[in-house]
């Protein structure tokens, strides 16, 4: 089944969010690694916000990613 635009938008939002606040590296990863890493970063985020830790982009996770917030990363070394 093709990915809907909404799903694509969510994925883009999540990628940007995780890169900015959870230290997910930007750029290409080898096949398979990218989504594993994204799941791991989603889990980190869900754990921080005390959401259900699923590693998936469920509605509550996306909703939190869309909320107005501070630009300082939640985890990871501050550079």
């Amino acid at each position: 089944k093709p990915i809907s635009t909404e799903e694509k938008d969510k994925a883009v939002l999540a990628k940007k969010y995780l890169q900015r606040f959870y230290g997910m590296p930007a750029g290409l990863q080898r096949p398979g690694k990218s989504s594993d890493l994204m799941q791991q970063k989603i889990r980190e985020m869900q754990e921080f916000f005390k959401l259900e830790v699923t590693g998936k982009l469920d509605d509550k996770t996306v909703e939190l990613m869309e909320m107005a917030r501070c630009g300082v990363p939640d985890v990871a070394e501050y550079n």
Partner: protein
Amino acid sequence: HFPRDLKWKTTNVTFRILNYTPDLKKKVVDRAVRKALNVWSKVTPLRFTKTFDGTADIMISFGTKEHGDFNPFDGPEGLLAHAYPPGIGIGGDTHFDEDETWTEDYHAFNLFLVAAHEFGHALGMAHSSDPGSLMYPVYSYAKGFPLSEDDIEGIQSLYGENPDHEKFKPKPIAPEKCDPELSFDAITELRGETIIFKDRFYWRLHPNMPEPEQTLIKNTWPEIPNKVDAAYENPERDVVIIFSGIKMWALNGYTLVDGYPKYIHKLGLPKTVRKIDAAVNIRDTGKTLLFVDEEYWSFDEQTGTMDTGYPRSIEDDFPGIGDEVDAAAYHYGYLNLYHEHTQFEYSYSARKVVRIMRANSILNC
């Protein structure tokens, strides 16, 4: 804290405002910045001095998109501001996104609250996962002194306590839904959802959401006080009535109804009643029960008057539940009465308690 517990080596920290947002008067920005710094100086030995030229420890500015630190903002909403941990050069500097609308009240984004959060970073605080803390990374509006116990513990472990012991009242930590001692302030239905009030927060239970959602009351309804005493839904009128002290508010869906707050005495309660402990609408009878101390009243929603013969004793009419109620809800002939950490399921027809559970079993605990 940031890695390596970055902090200022001195308790005398300087700040300078480089430019101003056009959204607010200059003096309002000055006041918000000073007030936000005072939040932290109240609980630490830190003292802040304003400078007008040269390099200060905390350089404050408003900018849009890429604004000189290769850490761009993103236009309206999304990122609101950022700040750098203590250090030389850019360390301590605090930047606000000028594409946001800055206010001094609960509209859009309150500059004082965002500044207080960012100055937390500028002093060495990283993000907290406590949703009631100032250092929680997501914006929410709240009145009063914004620091929670978590914030205070964090800043004092870096700089120590305020030697002047200035009085302050920290925000309590957000209640944990599975705390076995958890009690509730109020429970109501809202168009098929269940809303549970506790301290400054409420949990929202939606049939399509697997887990309860915890939110600050002020975040959804800035006009409603931080402490809700009782609440009930009148499904016929599609309103939820919320009680706090001697006042009450009405919601239609999540929207506040105009013309409120009103005094609870408008319902026909005597002036001696200063607080309602719990309220529940019994759908089958159209009556609303209002629990006050050891007694309860019956309000007829149809006529808008108090029923005669009340108040009556809770202990006499609801045997087995004790003499006081914190919160109440009605489902399919069963009245769920909450007192401290216990929930009593009371059968209206059998006139007896049929089940006793932990109060937080409603929160999947």
